[in-house]
């Protein structure tokens, strides 16, 4: 291989492969918690998603006559893992496969491959699934359920059966093994006119459980603690910067705090927003996806604020109980614009310069 004539003739050693691997490592705590909470179902889901993502990527690369070594950049594996962690445990195998193919083909390769996609691939696939199969995608299996007649999450053959054939094969209705997520419950109650505090009481909501993750939700999003550990690891490794997570979460907390103070009957408290749904997963992992987020620090702050406003608005006023993933996808569209308008002030140009 010819060596470039242009300097610099030194490199810091950073690589795409290492960057992606770092993110996978950062997701390890959340992955482990998901396995702890949802047993073999989580394992099956993660393996299926990652495997399908890698296979699809390989087929795409082959079809586009690109080197298969691109697989080693870990980006497809990461997309698969991301996707799995955002799915509920009740999803059957074919849905997981479909979503993984969607993520790689429609989310990434159709734009030209890594680096060219507008939307976060995992999130777009998840949204496609949510819109196409709303029942499966909003059915939350009771975590840590080991009840034998219903669904023992820690028994491999039961889980495999469930994963392959769906609840019908087990002669189980969804209702028997599922519960509402806090966000969904509060939203439903709100439409019935029940005040927030009462609804939370009725749900038996506990902030500690929500922080640790012992509640209903997508397999990887329930534990704020595990995700925060990963997020801090990413910040420490300088894979992400503080701009997006901080501005995103701060915006949600600020809006939620303000409206909760004004009208506590209708609006949920800020800490509830923080631990519920996919906010922390989105703030630290999804919104910070480098390809689909702005490059400049100021742009990232604007992006984070936008995500925060949208997340809170969708949760508070929208039809869906959870808005974090829609918010990130919507803000993804605005990235080129943000990049253009929020460039940093160049050295030697006064603050008034906009040329």
């Amino acid at each position, binding site marked *: *291989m010819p060596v470039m004539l242009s*300097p610099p*003739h030194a*490199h810091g050693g950073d690589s795409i492969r290492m960057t992606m691997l770092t993110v996978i490592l950062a997701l390890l705590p959340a992955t482990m918690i998901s396995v702890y909470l949802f047993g073999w179902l989580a394992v099956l889901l993660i393996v299926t998603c990652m495997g399908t993502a890698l296979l699809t990527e390989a087929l795409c690369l082959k079809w586009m006559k690109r080197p298969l070594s691109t697989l080693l950049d870990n980006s497809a594996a990461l997309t698969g893992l991301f996707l799995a962690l955002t799915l509920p445990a009740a999803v059957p195998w074919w849905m997981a496969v479909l979503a993984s193919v969607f993520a790689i083909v429609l989310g990434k390769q159709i734009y030209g491959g*890594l680096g060219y996609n507008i939307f976060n691939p995992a999130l777009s696939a998840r949204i496609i699934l949510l819109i196409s199969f709303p029942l499966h995608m909003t059915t939350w299996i009771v975590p840590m359920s080991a009840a034998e007649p219903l669904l023992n999450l820690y028994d491999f053959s039961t889980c495999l059966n469930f994963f392959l054939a769906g609840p019908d094969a087990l002669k189980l209705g969804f209702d028997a093994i599922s519960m509402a997520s806090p966000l969904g419950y509060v939203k439903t109650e709100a439409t019935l006119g029940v005040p927030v505090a009462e609804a939370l009481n009725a749900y038996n909501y506990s902030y500690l459980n929500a922080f640790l993750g012992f509640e209903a939700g997508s397999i990887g999003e329930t534990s704020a603690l595990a995700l925060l550990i990963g997020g801090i690891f990413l910040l420490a490794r300088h894979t992400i910067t503080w701009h997006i997570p901080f501005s995103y979460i701060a915006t949600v907390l600020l809006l939620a705090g303000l409206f909760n103070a004004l009208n506590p009957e209708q609006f949920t408290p800020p800490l509830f927003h923080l631990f519920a749904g996919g906010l922390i997963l989105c703030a630290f992992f999804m919104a910070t996806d480098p390809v689909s987020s702005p490059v400049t620090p100021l742009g990232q702050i604007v992006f984070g604020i936008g995500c925060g406003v949208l997340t809170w608005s969708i949760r508070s006023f929208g039809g869906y109980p959870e808005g974090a993933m829609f918010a990130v996808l919507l803000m993804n569209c605005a990235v080129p614009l943000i990049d253009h308008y929020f*460039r940093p002030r160049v050295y030697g140009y006064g603050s008034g310069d906009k040329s």
Partner: protein
Amino acid sequence: MPAMLRKFAQRLGMLQHSFAGGVHPEMFKVTAGLPIEVAPIAPVHILPMKQHIGEACSPLVKVGDRVLRGQKIAKSEGYLSVPVHAPTSGRVVRIEEHAIPHPSGMGLPCIFIESDGQDEVDESLEPIANWREINPAILRERVRMCGLAGLGGAVFPTFIKLIQDKRFPIETLVLNGIECEPWLTNDHRMMLENPDDILSGMAIVMHMVDAKSGIIAIEDNKPDAAIAMREALSRASDMENVRVVVLPTRYPQGSEKQLIYSLTGKEVEAGRLPMHIGVVCQNVGTSKALHDAVVLGRTLTERLVTVSGDAVDNPATMSVRLGMPVRTLFAQRGVDDLSGLHLLHGGPMMGERLKNVDVPVIKSTTGLLAMSIPTMQQAHTEEQPCIRCGHCSEACPVHLVPNLLADACRSDQFDKAEKYHLFDCIECGSCSYVCPSNIPLVHYFRYGKGQIAQTRREQIFAEASRKRSETRDARIEAEKAEKAARRSRVRRDHAPVKPVEAVETEVKDATEEKS
């Protein structure tokens, strides 16, 4: 907001000023602990007619002439230029085009001097010991005629900076001992071995530009140099207003504008010079050369060159006469076979790879590094797609957005590239250094700059041609008109006395001319 926080922290004394961005490359300063070695004079020295930024020189000598060390052999042409001097005594054997250290391997007219081994010095320049009583303008001319150009690597003619302008009084003289490029140890060794001469040069510059105070800037990876300079300061008289400032190590702190910001918190406005905010910067090596030029009456015939790299077993900081062939210099360090090695002219961050190894050491040769192929391949792995991680924006000391800029350059959107401040890029290479996709960003920026410059040249040329052709058309038109007028005058004068007919002819003539 980060800028505000930084200012706030500075006010609390929590943080020194520090330029934004930058990187921390591995330093490899293997020659830092080794004393400067004097390179023997080569049999033939090759002196290119341009070794500085600015216009090339023209030879003053002919083939066969005998020259002395320090004798002027080429005179500067134009304002932004400094003369070239013979590095040793000997005979001019050839004047012809030869490759110079340039990435393209391009050539320039060079004077070849065959050494006679006597190293006889031209003593015609008087030492100026009492420079404090001498008019700065005279000293400035001395600096110019001694061929001084910035020895930090930029080789900007030194005398140009050393001017007093009442509108821009100089507050601070900054002596740049940062040397942030990996491998290079010239300034470091110079500060350890010649601190007094450096200070003497500094005092002369302060006298010339009437600077109120002076700062010697050193990075904290050279604590011994800071001690040496502080000791020299305590020995020196009249230098109470000079202090040594030790800055945290970060590349590219040695870049003039970044250093000024680190030291003063002030930015040099785009398109202006440091003197416009009351600062003048000099490299420590230049300061030593300035001392030699003024106090000893010596022209610039040698410089320090770090001969190092991972393929050199016996590296050293060397004092080298200008024009020394690179091949000879490496041979002196025990590297006889240069094939299969990559040679870098300068440091690895901003230095150029030498395509042609038969080039001489010139005034800008800060270092000559011989790198093994694996090392260079590691530095230039295959380009991957940009994942927009933004690390380049963070590393850019000028606050550009390198990935957007590279996109614009790569897709030939030069208007956009200019709007994104392409020409403010200092090509420090920090962006490429941190890029996880190994994108050669600097390469794209150079391409963009080159294309834009080419377009501008073409525009200027087209404009000139258009003017020329318009002038020509106008001239031809005028000549025709004059001819017609003359003819009609002649016809009128010589026509038979039949006024009505004459007028008719005149009209007919005019229509003929038009067609």
